[in-house]
């Protein structure tokens, strides 16, 4: 039960790759790492979640908080590479309509 968070920022562009499980135990690690970038003006953030194999509401909470901070500074957050399971989690909570998320599988229904 582990998480790995790799974040790289230059010229207001943040590229991130997160892998592992996001739950009550690992979410604080992710939150802390993201908070280092939340006050940058007009941040363009793209977080790749294709290797996240488990996530629950604690993970959603971290992404919602980061989304709000980035938005309030005129930036944009995109979550990409979502598995069907992760996509479903965003959709049933209604967050899929609000946030910019992209599934790993292109096309289809």
């Amino acid at each position, binding site marked *: 039960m582990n998480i790995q968070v790799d974040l790289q920022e230059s010229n207001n562009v943040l590229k991130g790759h997160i892998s592992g499980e996001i*739950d*009550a*135990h690992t979410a604080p690690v992710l939150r802390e790492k993201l908070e280092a970038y939340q006050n940058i003006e007009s941040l363009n953030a793209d977080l790749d979640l294709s290797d996240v194999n488990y996530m*629950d*509401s*604690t993970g959603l*909470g971290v992404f919602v908080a980061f989304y709000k901070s980035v938005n309030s500074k005129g930036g944009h957050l995109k979550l990409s590479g979502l598995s069907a399971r992760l996509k479903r*989690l965003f959709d049933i909570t209604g967050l899929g309509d609000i946030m910019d998320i992209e599934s790993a599988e292109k096309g289809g229904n």
Partner: protein
Amino acid sequence: MRPFDYVEMRVPAKSQYVGVARLTISGLASRIGFTYDDIEDLKIASSEAVTNAVQHAYSDDEDGEVVIGCALYGDKIEIMVADHGQSFNFEETKAKVGPYHDQVEGDFLREGGLGLYLIETLMDEVKVHHQEGVTVFMTKYVGGEQVEEDVETISS
């Protein structure tokens, strides 16, 4: 002989045990034939309940414990999660839990937030009991919510 197998876990109220409980429940669910998607739903729902219980129990007592009881039937799993470290008489506690009401569970909802919403969405039945702490009781049926017995299956 009782109609179900019963498995109980007692874990310290620490977040690192949420994943342990989740994996154990995943293993139990796969024994009664839940699909991959149903097991993933069960993992999220049980993590949400255990996470809530860990936070409640820990705020009361740093040495607190969480008890997770699982009853395995042929066609369903019942999971009970309590934030007070007492083992429960499963049938007795089950009889006491009532349906979940938005207004009554205001506190739990505020703290649980999205978590309780996910439990309700991903499980077939959810009940919450307030007495000596909070107990969440949830059920999931193999192959989805039970339907009337005489309803015919529509095959494509």
